[in-house]
């Protein structure tokens, strides 16, 4: 009969103080951001489904409601005024409707039309040809308004220069656009739909391409602004959707130059918005900024088609999703409190006066 002999081994010492320090620092460097991510996204959306933020217009209200505080903030970042002004057809066009104001608004920067005659201090550049808010649900799969593209006013009766720049496109949108966000409701996400009015073939249209750009959204309330930025988008300009065929019944697939953009807010950002405007959406306006456009294929941006660039029209839709602010507040604040206590504990444990870590690793440390 074999006798089993067990040889006692000394527990190996695996960490010297320096190794222990490196390990501890990297654990904190790695774990702290993960913990912050968990805390800031604690609690789930009470409604993951996006719903339209826009007020549907009454079809009987032929003209719609007039815009009073909606305008282009930036229309591409490239000044094509001289092109349009010197263009022979444009001069002729001047006699049939292209006026100084249109030339001036060939270039819009920070809400100012500064292209041609900049003596007028600030002029509201209309967002739609009619300058009336009309939102309907039969154009794209969400409620949308028809807006004029970046160079509609100056180029609608003229040759479009073929590109609007790649720097910044931005809009200021009054509360009509978010009127369906109920008073007192907290939002944790906004989705913007952009679609060129002209549909194209889904399979053999060469204008689709993949692009990258940055976005930010600002909320304005009682002369205060809160901005959420550093959203990086990687998008195809091919927007494909199902549309009800009113003539033949059923749904048809349509494609257009366009995309949807999701601005997901972390939970503490949602709390921040709630604190900022008290969820008083009737008196809140928003600004949307899209900038630094680049093509993924490496070609220069040039005349790359964007849904809002051109001399025609595009559809803009806005959707939102809601969240329970009490639930979010509880998770975020409790989580932050726990994190704070842990970090404070690590801080104290890093002093010579309290050594819980060393005690924890006792036997594994080389003194």
């Amino acid at each position, binding site marked *: 009969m074999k006798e089993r002999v067990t040889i006692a081994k000394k527990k190996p010492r695996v960490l010297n103080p320096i190794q222990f320090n490196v390990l501890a620092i990297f654990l904190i460097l790695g774990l702290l951001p993960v913990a912050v991510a968990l805390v800031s996204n604690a609690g789930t959306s009470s409604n993951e489904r996006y719903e339209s933020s826009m007020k549907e217009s009454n079809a009987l209200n032929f003209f719609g409601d007039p815009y009073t505080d909606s305008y282009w903030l930036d229309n591409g970042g490239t000044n094509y005024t001289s092109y349009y002004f010197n263009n022979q057809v444009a001069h002729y066009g001047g006699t049939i409707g292209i006026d100084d104001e249109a030339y001036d608004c060939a270039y819009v920067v920070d809400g100012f039309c500064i292209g041609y005659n900049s003596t007028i201090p600030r002029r509201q550049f209309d967002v739609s040809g009619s300058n009336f808010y009309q939102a309907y649900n039969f154009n794209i799969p969400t409620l949308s308004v028809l807006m004029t593209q970046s160079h509609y006013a100056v180029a609608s009766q003229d040759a479009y220069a073929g590109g609007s720049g790649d720097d910044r496109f931005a809009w200021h949108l009054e509360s009509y656009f978010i009127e369906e966000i109920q008073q007192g409701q907290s939002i944790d996400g906004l989705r913007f739909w952009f679609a060129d009015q002209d549909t194209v073939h889904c399979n053999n249209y060469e204008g689709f391409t993949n692009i990258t750009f940055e976005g930010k959204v600002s909320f304005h309330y009682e002369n205060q602004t809160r901005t959420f930025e550093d959203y990086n988008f990687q998008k195809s300009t091919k927007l494909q959707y199902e549309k009800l065929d009113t003539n033949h019944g059923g749904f048809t697939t349509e494609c257009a130059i366009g995309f949807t953009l999701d601005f997901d807010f972390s939970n503490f950002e949602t709390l921040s918005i709630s604190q900022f405007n008290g969820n008083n959406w009737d008196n809140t306006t928003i600004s949307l900024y899209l900038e630094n456009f680049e093509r993924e294929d490496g070609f220069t941006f040039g005349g790359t088609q964007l849904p809002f660039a051109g001399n025609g029209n595009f559809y803009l839709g806005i959707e939102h999703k809601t969240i329970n602010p009490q639930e979010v507040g509880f998770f975020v*604040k409790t989580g932050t409190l726990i994190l704070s206590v842990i970090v404070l504990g690590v801080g104290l444990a890093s002093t010579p006066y309290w050594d819980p*870590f060393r005690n924890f690793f006792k036997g594994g440390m080389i003194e």
Partner: protein
Amino acid sequence: MIEIILYITTLLISLFVVGSASDAGFLNSGLTRAFGGLSTQFVSASWLYQYTNLETFLYGCLNGQVGIVGYFFIGSLSLLIVVWINNLFEYRQAIV
């Protein structure tokens, strides 16, 4: 301000890592220490900025978006960084 604090923190970490490696017999030449330090700071700063929302969260805490516990968190983190800086100067270790 948050950016500066994060850069200082990652700089301290890289200095500590390079110093520790040097003490342990690695990274003996100035060139390798410089490369090791820069690499460590680049990787740690990139990680914090690009792959986490730590910066946004700290700004949220600083701006009062998380309430009083946000300030408590900033205070705790500041204390931790101050202790580590002190320890690095006093003992050449972050945690003593």
